[in-house]
Each structure stands twice: as structure tokens, then as C-alpha cells.
């Protein structure tokens, strides 16, 4: 080693640490979830739907009960942002008015959309006073006809001339919360029973599992119909609401219980749980510090995927007339209007609350799928 530059020895380097390693489980889960685009899209829609459920009074142009017999079964009015004035486009949000002709054969009004009459739509118009979230008194509405009292039926009108759009918005509150409440009850049952099954094992576990298998093999809808039909006709609507959620949860807890049990069983044999026992952690600390945090994310995903089933079931029961009843309005109750083909053929817009069901179920499913995929951020 003479002429060339004195090559310094390269010291062996320490093991590199991957990334910063400072991300907690939730940060990792979030990162993985964000990569699931459908899941994120579903999540945003679900969020919006729950906002609607929270403040329908502000978002709906008219109140739930507002009706106008002049516009029974009026079709939806097309909405436009502007008008053509002498070839120029002008910003002027509006809907078209109606022209009504009485059909003397059927005795019904036949509506056509008028080309001349323009009903201007504005933001933050005043309407009936209400209490937002039960607290804030207000009479502001997000949007509505500038000239109060003009017909404004984005989703058409029902047979009493009520605004289908406003009613669908109000229905959001009941339909979306019944899923949440139902799942909450199922969750309590599921965690309790699944936890007992998974923690005790043995004969208890076996008994509970056979029962769950049995319940899952009972055809749910006939049983639901049977239970729902048994609710007396004369009890208050709010009680009906809770009874229906209880009925839906009676069969709904089983899948949650299975997940909880499966996780507890898997956790019991995890080395880090054994290590925690050797560290001297008591059963309570082992369960709440080591086991539960490991599968909370899985439970959130399963819960999200269980909500759509509840919504669908409530809609079906209410549609059959044995679920919720007026004055409580859910999407299923609204769909009762579309009881036979003839009605639907003459007023197909009565099926529009069904679209709300499909959109919410779809986005909850997307969200749930995304959450399920992200629930275990360590497996890749």
C-alpha cells in the first residue's frame, strides 16, 4: 500500500432500523386504510350520511309533516343551476314549476313540468322554526324556494303532497341510527358471550358455540316477522323503535360473538400474552392491556359490516308494515307508499328512498371492507 490514497477501513455498521418505528398501531392502521380507496370513499359518504342524520331539520327544505293537497303525487322537478338569457348563461339556481290538468277519468291531477314558470332556489332561506340538535333555535334552512310556499319537490311528492326529498332526509336519522343502536346492543351481547366463550373454553365454549350455530341456522326474516308482528299496535312509537332494535339484535349478536371468541382464543396462545402473564399481569390487566387492544380494530370492522344488515332488515320489516310505523319515519316506512306495481308505475319516484338505502349500505360495506383489510397493520 504505497501510492494510492490510504483507504480508510469501513466499519461494519449497526443493524438499520426500519423507518422511524414510532408509529403506533392506530397510525399504521390509518396508513393502511388510506391506501384502500373504495374504503376511504365509503367512509366519506358514511360520514356525510351521519351528518344528514344529525341535522335533517336544517338540511330538509320543509318539515316532515308539511303537505300540500294541490300537489299530490307531483313528479320530481329537474334542478338547474342557471338559465339561458338571450344566448348567455346566467347563474340562477331554480326548478321548473308545474302545470296541472285534472284527468276526469281517474279524478287525479296529471302534472307536467312547465317550461315558463321558474321557481328560484336560494341558500339559507327561512322556514318553520325548529331546534337544531334539540339545542339551537333557528328557522334557517340550507336551501329552499326563495318565495316561501312555492312547490319544491326534488324527489316528487307522495299521495298527500308531502315532499319526498325532505322526508327521505328525515328518514336518514331513524334508518341510520337503528343500525347503530342495533349493532351496539349486539356488540354488548357479542363481547359478553363471545368473551365468556373464548376465555373459559371447554364445555362452556362448546355449549355457546353450538347455540350460536343453531341461531345462525334459523331463517332470520320469518323469525323477525314473527317477533315484530307480536308488538302490540297500541304502544308508543318510541318503544316500537327500541323493540325493533332489540329484535334485530337477538339474531345479530352471533357473528360478533364468534369474532370476539375467535380472537380471545387466538390471543390466549400468543407468546406476548404469556410473557405478560410471566411479567405478573393479572387477568384484568392481561385482557384490557394486551388482548383487547389487539383486536379492537377487528371489532370495529366487523361492527361496520354488521350495520348494513340491520338497516336492510329494518327497511324490509317497515315496508311490510310490521316494523316502525308513523309518525316515526324511516326509509322503510317511506317505501310503504310504494305498496303495489300500479302505484309505482304512476309514481316511480316513491322508490327513491330505496336509493338512499342502497347508497348507505354500499358505502358502509366499502368502509367495512377497507377497515377489515387495515385491521391488522402488521401482516405485510
Amino acid at each position: 500500500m504505497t501510492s494510492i490514497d490510504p483507504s480508510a477501513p469501513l466499519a461494519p455498521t449497526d443493524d438499520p432500523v426500519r423507518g422511524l418505528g414510532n408509529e403506533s398501531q392506530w397510525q399504521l392502521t390509518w396508513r393502511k386504510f388510506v391506501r384502500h380507496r373504495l374504503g376511504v370513499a365509503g367512509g366519506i359518504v358514511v360520514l356525510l350520511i351521519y351528518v344528514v342524520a344529525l341535522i335533517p331539520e336544517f338540511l330538509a327544505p320543509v318539515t316532515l309533516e308539511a303537505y300540500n293537497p294541490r300537489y299530490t303525487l307531483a313528479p320530481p322537478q329537474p334542478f338547474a343551476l342557471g338559465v339561458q338569457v338571450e344566448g348567455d348563461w346566467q347563474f340562477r339556481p331554480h326548478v321548473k314549476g308545474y302545470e296541472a290538468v285534472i284527468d276526469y277519468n281517474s279524478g287525479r291531477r296529471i302534472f307536467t313540468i312547465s317550461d315558463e314558470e321558474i321557481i328560484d332556489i336560494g341558500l339559507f332561506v327561512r322556514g318553520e322554526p325548529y331546534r337544531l340538535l334539540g339545542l339551537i333555535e333557528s328557522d334557517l334552512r340550507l336551501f329552499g324556494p326563495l318565495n316561501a310556499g312555492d312547490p319544491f319537490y326534488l324527489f316528487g311528492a307522495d299521495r298527500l303532497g308531502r315532499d319526498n326529498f325532505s322526508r327521505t332526509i328525515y328518514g336518514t336519522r331513524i334508518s341510520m341510527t337503528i343500525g347503530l343502536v342495533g349493532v351496539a346492543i349486539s356488540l354488548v351481547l357479542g363481547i359478553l358471550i363471545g368473551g365468556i366463550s373464548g376465555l373459559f373454553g371447554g364445555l362452556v365454549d362448546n355449549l355457546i358455540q353450538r347455540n350460536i350455530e343453531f341461531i345462525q341456522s334459523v331463517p332470520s326474516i320469518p323469525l323477525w316477522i314473527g317477533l315484530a308482528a307480536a308488538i302490540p299496535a297500541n304502544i308508543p312509537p318510541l318503544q316500537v323503535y327500541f323493540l325493533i332494535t332489540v329484535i334485530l339484535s337477538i339474531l345479530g349478536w352471533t357473528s360478533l360473538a364468534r369474532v370476539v371468541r375467535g380472537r380471545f382464543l387466538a390471543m390466549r396462545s400468543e407468546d406476548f400474552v404469556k410473557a405478560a402473564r410471566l411479567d405478573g399481569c393479572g387477568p384484568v390487566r392481561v385482557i384490557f392491556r394486551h388482548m383487547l387492544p389487539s383486536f379492537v380494530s377487528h371489532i370495529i370492522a366487523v361492527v361496520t359490516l354488521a350495520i348494513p344488515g340491520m338497516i336492510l332488515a329494518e327497511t324490509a320489516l317497515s315496508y311490510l308494515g310490521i316494523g316502525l310505523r308513523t309518525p316515526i319515519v324511516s326509509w322503510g316506512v317511506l317505501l310503504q307508499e310504494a305498496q303495489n306495481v300500479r302505484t309505482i308505475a304512476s309514481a316511480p319516484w316513491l322508490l327513491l328512498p330505496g336509493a338512499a338505502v342502497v347508497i348507505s349500505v354500499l358505502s358502509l360495506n366499502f368502509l367495512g371492507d377497507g377497515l377489515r383489510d387495515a385491521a391488522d397493520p402488521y401482516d405485510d
Partner: protein
Amino acid sequence: MTSSDTLLDISDLSIDFTTRNGPVRVVDGLTLSLPRGKTVCLVGESGCGKSVTAKSILRVLDLQAKITSGTIRLGDSDITALHLDSPELRAVRGGKIGMIHQEPMSFLSPLYTVGNQIIEALQLHRKIDAKTARAAAIDMLRQVGMPEPETRVDRYVFELSGGQRQRAMIAMALICQPRLLIADEPTTALDVTTQANILDLLRRLQAEQGMAVLFITHDLGVVEEIADEVAVMYLGRIVEQGPAAEVLANPKHPYTRGLLASMPRLDGDFNRPLRAIPGMVPAPANRPSGCPFRTRCDIARAGICDTHVPEAVTVGTDHSAACHALGEFASQFALPATALQPAAVATNVSTAKALPLLRVERLTKVFPIRKGFLERTVGHVRAVSEVSFTIARGETLGLVGESGCGKSTLARTLVGLHRADGGTITFEAEDGPIDIHTAKGAIARTLRRDMRMVFQDPTGSLNPRMRVRDIIGEVLEVNTTMSRAEIYTRVEALLGEVGLSPDYATRYPHAFSGGQRQRIAIARALASNPRLVIADEAVSALDVSVQTQIINLMKRLQENLGLTYLFVSHDLGVIANVSDRVAVMYAGRIVEMGATEAIFHTPCHPYTEALLAAIPGKGRRMNPSLRIEGHAPSGGATERGCAFAVRCRYASTQCRSSVPVLRPTGSGQVVACHRADDLSLASPVRAA
């Protein structure tokens, strides 16, 4: 060698993986030729691209892998040029080249009988009717040493034992008499005695059929046992290749030298300190520039190793290595000190007279077998049966045995993960002996601090949802009155002690490699200043270089902190290296126990003898009659006769009727064998 001797010629092969962050090169310009009728071993740690190379020869790579350049020539045809769905390629697969894998359980379908799958392999390449094919399959099973091939042919893979499964897979690969057999870690998942049998079988079949074998392994002992030639792979490249005897005796590349130095050896001084390669194999995405090994190399030079990719240099007959220290820059590398000086580890003091720390007497653990809806108990497995031993202060007791012998159950019963069904465990705490069974309250807390455990799987044993400092500090949080700040200070000190930066305290386990995680697990075990640490296969899941790092760390800690170890392992080399005394377990009982030297040099139990004879790398020098057939019983300890009698060549009628008890022998150990006095057993392990 001349080209007519070459069967398969891989030239400049590169394979990329498609990942979310773009392509990553996993095999980088690999050149390797396989001579006819010989065994070539491809050696390296995990993540070096060995399996990918093997799969590329048959073009059965996973979807994300793409061959980007190079040729694989078999005779006149280039396999890389064949269309994936061409008859030519199918004729190669299974016909000209057969392949066996590590895990027969997952490489054979559980839905078809093994016979079905073997016959299918035959009928894909030969026009042959079902009856003849079946006869051929049975014949093949007989050739691979399957007992009762006529009935086994109709069995499903899950009905066979581990060794039988591997034999079935070998039969499937060889039924068409291929010219080349690719064996991808075929013995890694097997017990050492079964591994020895399978290696014998492969060697015999190779000689009989005159085929070439490409044998992929991470175990240099297996290389020594079976290889004619060896190619050492690191990060997708061959760094050294040549005749096996030459490469193993006279390694040139620092990586090969490092691998050999870090492997526990049984010739010479067992306890000789091992020299570990620092660090770990980097992920292919972080391939270092220049020589890929430079980040772990103790002779690497800046300006050369980090800028120039080394070319293979001929260093002997058919022996080449790719290292700058051997090539044109050789003059710039000061010769590394010939005697590599590891951290001095004190030779283990004689512990025979030391005070006992743990006394185990007639310990029994029985698992009930439950069945049916009511969970009725229909039988028992005596996983641990009347085991007695003591561990003295400051010593390391090695507990060795094959899978299912009860060694892990024993370890777990000692720390209290299982409740013993009989016997006593007494721990000599500072203020007097503690009976582990009856310990409660403050005494139980003392015990939990004094006796700690390190698990096998460093990924599973750390809660991924907790920060490192909370994982390590939990034992202090639960059992002491230390404040959070005090605990964190202690955790940082512990991290330093196990060779990690104190900055790592706030990170989560997922940021660390396997070796680093095991260091964290050791720090957790040490947090409460324990006196006894039970290591249950603590280094078995690690690559050889990392394994050595952990072994050295544990030895250093033992010396510094005066620890006592119970070291459980199935790896005889590791056991020999770390232990002062060794206990050999078989079917729930200790069959032999004594000083390490005595056990390895003068075994007194036929099972110990068979275990030692099965250590790979020794087989060629051994009498093959020392091999044992069959597998350890799964039902735990027997209550009539010696459990080993059915596999023991020396068994007498007495062995089948009464259970032997441990008693002292002339050479200083205790042994449970009726014939211990009249047998003179051989050890393949000779003193230096």
C-alpha cells in the same frame, strides 16, 4: 471442468421483484453451473435469493418475480427462453428436473392421496396405464424407504409422519427419473435424526440414479455432509464457489469465513467463543453499493468496496471468490489478524460444587386428551414425567431433545405457564427456598422477578401495540413500586446492555429485525434483575450469524450479571457451545444428564449416541448403523418399559417391561438405561 460434464448452466441470471416502490433486484447476475451426477450446495442466510434462484430454474416463480436477464441452459435449450405454457417447458418440469421443498405438508395437497399425486407426476411424462403407474408409485415409495408402501400409497399427507411426508415428496420428484433434483431446504423442518436419514437417502438415490442435485441450505453442517461442490450466496450473488472440502477448509471470502466462524462446532473446544458477523442481511431494496457484503465486513475499505462491484477471482482449482481483497486491490487490504480476537469470555468455572439455585424433583405434567361435545377426558399425554434435576448458581444447563420430547413443556411448567401435576420445584431465593407451587403474594412477586423466560419467536413474544419501553418495563410496573421515570431510566440502561441504542425505547417492535427483537426480549427478561433465565429455543428462529450474536450476548450477560441459564434447544451445536451441563430428553423423561464434555464425548444412553451420530457433517465418518428409524412417540412418556426401546438397537426384554431410572455411571453423568453398564457407546464427536 469441460462443458460436456455440465448439466445445467446458469449464466448472468438476474431476477427482480415488483414492489409498491418499484422493482427490487433479488438475484443479481448469478452464474453457476451444475455438473452431472454431483451435488452442489447453494448456501446462504435467509433473504439471499436461494429459493428464488431454485424456482427460476423451473420457471415457477411467484407472480411478482421476473427474470430480467441471463440464461439457464439445460443441454441445448435455454429455459428462460421457453414460453411459460409450452410443452417443452412442461417436459423439463418434473421430467428432466424434479424438485422437493422444505414443507411437504404444504407442498402436497391434503385433498388427494400421496399415491394420486405421485402417479399424476408419472402420467404427465409417460404414456402409461393407471395400473402400471400405481405399481411404479409403490415401487418408488419402497425405494425412498417408505414403510409399508402398499398401504401408504393410499394415505393422505396429514396421515404421515414428518419424515414419511418428505419421503413421499421425494418419490414424487424422482418418479420420472429426472437428471437434476432441486432440493430446497428439504431437511430444515425435520428433527435431526430424521434429517440424517433423509440425507442418507438422498445420497443413496443420487448414486443409484446418477442424477445431479442442487441442494439449497443455510446449514453448513448439511453442506459438509452432502456437498461435492458448494456455492455461497449473499444478496443475490455467488460470493464464493468451489469444491466443498476446499471451500470449507480454506474459505476465502469474508462472508464464508464469517459463516464458518459463527457456526457452533463440535470438534475441539465446545465452549470456544464464536465470532459473529455483525448486523444482518439487508433487505434487497437496500442493497449496499459496491460489494453488497461491505456493511458487515471487517476488512472493507472505503473507496474500493463501496464503489466497485467485486469480480470473481480464481483462488485455487475450481475455487473462486468475489472479494476485492483477493483481486487487483489486494495490496490495499492489510492482512486481517490471523487470530480473530473475540470478546474474551471467561472459561466456565467448574460448577459441580456450586450451590443449587433450582431444584426440580419428580416433576410431572399431564395433558388430558378431550373429545366430544362434553369434553370428556379420553386419555392422557404424559408430556413431562417424573423429571428431577438441579441447576447450580451461575451455570448453564442445556436441555436438548427432538420436537415433542417435552422440553418446552418442562420449561413452561417451571416458570408457571403450566400447572404441574406432580413433583416439586424449589427455587433458592435470597431469603430462603421458595416452593413454586405454593408461592403467593409478595413471595410470588419475588419469584416472578427472579425467574424469567425468553421465548423462541421474537415477533410473537413482543406485543406489537406497545412501545419498547413499556414492554421491557412492564415487569417493573406490575411488581415494584418504581416510578415511571425510574422505570424508563432503567429501560434505557438495559437497552444499552443488550447492544441497542437507548433511543429505541420509544419505538414499536415492528421497526426491528428478528435479532434486535430478541435483544429486546432479553432486555425484558433482565429488567427485574433475575437470577435464573429460562431460554426456550431462544435462538432457533434466527439466522446463523444473528444466532451467534445472541449467544455471545447471553454469555456476556451471564458473566457480567452472574446469571444462571436453563437453555432449551433442539440444536446440539448450540447446546454444546453454551452449556456447562446437558440434559437429554426423550418422551417426557430425562434419559441422560452430565457435563457437556461427558455427554458429547462419552455418551451412555443409546438415544444420545443416535442423536450425536445424526449431527450433519459427521455422517460420512460414522457407521451408518447408528441411524435410528421412526420418530419420537407423540403420546409422551410410557408407563411400561423404556420409551426408546422400539427404536433402540440394544433393547432387551427388560427394556420393554420396566421403566429405567436415572443412575450414575462411571464417566460422571447420570443415565436412564438398563444396559448402560454393559454397553460401550461410540461418539462421533472427538476431543481435539
